[in-house]
């Protein structure tokens, strides 16, 4: 009786057979071993990729998802309107927002509403960036900062003060009134490029 030739792997439907029935790779032979060692050996002569962190810090990719930042309009008013869409989008439930009314005396952002409480819990955040996509005012963006280790849970819940971007040239610390004769729509269109002297209420 003639022996039946066993099927080769390429002739089998591998999704339908047991693992044990599949031919496993056998001995690679001496040449195979030498091939492997050659890779190791040749690496000795290459420039090492190791970075002496934290003394040396390699820059991240431009679109690296790092710590969040709450941005400001060019006159210093906050862009966040406290709409909670970031919290809604967050798959890890890491964001907590409470909105509040802007008043003439206490204006934090253009328009009616601002984010009174803004917290991101970095123990929960998975840096997926869905919050950034959800933000209707581009108030929330991500920086490239990745050093977010700390020694207590409380310290890793970032408050609004920790997340707000710095005041740059031409900006004034809110609360202050809106740019004269501008509406919130003008702010979004980019018509406001820096603070107007009349907005400086502390002067």
């Amino acid at each position: 009786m003639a022996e039946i030739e066993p099927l080769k792997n390429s002739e089998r439907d591998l999704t339908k057979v047991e693992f044990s029935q599949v031919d496993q790779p056998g001995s690679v032979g001496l040449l195979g071993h030498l091939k492997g060692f050659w890779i190791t050996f040749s690496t000795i002569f290459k420039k090492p990729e190791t970075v002496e962190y934290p003394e040396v810090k390699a820059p991240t990719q431009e679109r690296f998802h790092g710590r969040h930042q709450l941005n400001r309009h060019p006159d210093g008013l906050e862009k966040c309107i406290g709409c909670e869409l970031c919290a809604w989008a967050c798959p890890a439930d890491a964001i907590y927002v409470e909105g509040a009314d802007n008043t003439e005396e206490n204006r934090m952002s253009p328009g009616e509403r601002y984010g009174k409480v803004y917290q991101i819990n970095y123990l929960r955040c998975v840096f997926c960036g869905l919050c950034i996509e959800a933000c209707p005012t581009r108030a929330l963006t991500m920086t490239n900062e990745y050093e977010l280790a700390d020694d207590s849970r409380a310290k890793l819940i970032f408050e609004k003060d920790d997340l707000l971007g710095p005041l740059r040239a031409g900006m004034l610390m809110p609360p202050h009134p809106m740019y004269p004769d501008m509406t919130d729509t003008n702010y979004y269109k980019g018509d406001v490029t820096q603070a107007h002297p009349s907005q400086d209420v502390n002067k």
Partner: protein
Amino acid sequence: MSTAEIVDMITVVIDGFEVSVPKGTLVIRAAEQLGIQIPRFCDHPLLDPVGACRQCLVDIEINGRAFPKPQASCTIPVEPGMIVKTQLTSPVADKAQQGVMELLLINHPLDCPVCDKGGECPLQNQALSSGHSESRFQGVKRTFEKPINISSQVLLDRERCVLCARCTRFSEQIASDPFITLNERGALQQVGIYEKQPFTSYFSGNTVQICPVGALTGASYRFRARPFDLVSTPSACEHCASGCDMRTDVRRGKTLRRLAGEDASVNEEWNCDKGRWAFKYVTATDRLAHPQIRNSDGELVQASWPEALAAAAQGLKASASAVLVGGRTTHEDAYGYSKFARIALNTNDIDFRSRVSSDEEREFLATHIVGSTTTYLDIDRADQVVLVGFEPEEESPIVFLRLNKQFRKRALKVTSIGSKLSIGVEKLKGEFVKVAPGEEATAIAGLPLTAKSVILIGERASESAGVLTAVAALASSTSAKLAWIPRRAGERGALEAGAIGNLLPGGRPVTDASARVDIAALWNTPSLPTSVGRSNDEIYAAVISGELGALLVGGVDPLDGLNSKAALTALEKAFVVSLEIAPSEVTQRANVILPVAAITEKSGSFLNWEGRARKFDAAVDNSLNRSDLRILSMIAQEMGVSLNLGTVTAAAKEIAAIGTWDGARVSMKPIKSEKTSSLKDNEFVLTSWRRLLDLGTLQKGEDNLAGTARQCVAVISSKRAASLGVVDGDQLKISSALGAVTLPALVEDIHDDAVWAPRNSRGSQLLVNLGATHGAVVTVVKI
């Protein structure tokens, strides 16, 4: 509608499915029965159809003849042979709906991120389900100033409005407060208020709830949360005895808003502004958090629970004690107080009526009200409704809405017996039987009623002698139905639970030996006290005279009574154990204070005026505060008695086991009404009631709500005004032996002998300021 009524059924075909519905049903409702959702904004099942938004367009064909264009399904009743094609089967209807949606969105601002409705918005949802994903509109949207206050608690954002007229129709058809209307035409059409009259309706909150977009929003809830932040719990309203079904929305342990729930047999889909917007007292910062004991220096110091419970038990055991429980406890808690008084204190000295009350009332309640089964349905079927000492709009707003519904539907005759014509009765076009305060009984006697009539008695009926006797006589001679509608949510429950001196739970008279045996067997106790207990005022008097030494007080404001001085003196003198949620006149004088759970932190039920149980669960989970019931059990344990009422469920079970009493009732001693003596020139007889929105404890901290309270005035008749030389707006000083209040005058339809002022409003707290109430003679002078 009675079941015996024969209803014509009409069969129509909608999207290929046959459905049979009663004649007169609108196409949109018939489709709902098949589970076919036609998009809509203006349509509301409780409002008259208007066809304002045009979103519900469908293709209709009757007996082979098709309408040339799609029709609004919310305005067309079904007809035999009708074939309806909705957006699901008719491309024409679908295109029409998409066109309407595109049109509605032309001027709708893209401010969903800051809009309170965002996330629960019918416009958002239906724009997704039946709108284009892109708009062809390239122009500039029409804008309005936003938002504007149409009252202190309702904000209007005209840009967002889709002109569905739900709010204006509600105000006109349901509340009869037509203070808002649609102004202008075309693109500039907008909801507006009258120039000089803000939207001060007691029911304005409902317009916020039924607004299908974010055009009307509540000032208190503005920007506070998003729908997905909130945990909703079905609950019941703790304010009045109407018994509204509610929904409580909580964010992180804090109640942020309350909405009217749906219960067709009680509040339908409405509630009043007090129920909707008065809840901050629960989270007020001055809530009691820890037990306190008064030390030997007379100071209240914080104590541990075991210490405080031991001190309470010791004090209550040391001398004869009585129980004062306010009308705001749940049915189960009231039952706890009732059982505690009988078992732990061995007394019938318990009274839930922490207000002006009389012995006549107590007997009336025991004879005619406990176990009574008059319901809202009886109002719906009544041929006439008589109001005695009761202002539905101010004291039980949902009863008013029900009366108003029947008045609008079939011109229900409402007769009000009183001294001053109220706004509510005016709206109901009621017959106003004008009598001098204190002489109501004579007017009641002759009323021609039938067995289908309903007499609604308010808690103020106890304030003039003989009224309840006359009501009882009228009810028995005409077999009209009786209903007692107290102002507070817990009073009916407390009555059924026997938190009153002459009744045991389930309406059993304390003087009836077999009734006592019933209860004693259930409670596993050898005997129960036999004599009728003291009433509120008698308890205070007994403390002052030294017969009683200790008081257990829960949820009582001693300033609600006629003789608040005596109440405060008694509280000073007695050993007082106070179960409270916040510091009060009682806790200031208490020896032991035990903090209890507020309504959102516990479960339980209220019995509304019908005696219908309104169950609710704790809206705030994991509260450390315990219910009154639990604390009473712990005090009893300390006293060496077992109440066996560890949980609300246990209490509810025991209450169910008691059932109703079919034995002999207490008989009522008839009381004669007293005629007032003749009045001098500047003497008047006082009449008054509490307004819905006033200085009530449960409305603390609600400034937006207080902004819509009615104006505080002193009302006199035109004849007396002429003789005093008074015109509207003059300052009137009303004074009694105790004090005086000064209010602007208003000349209205009131009995010549009477002067009316609100009982507990800003600048007019009659019980405290005057020590006087309905029927007292006061002097009025112009200043």
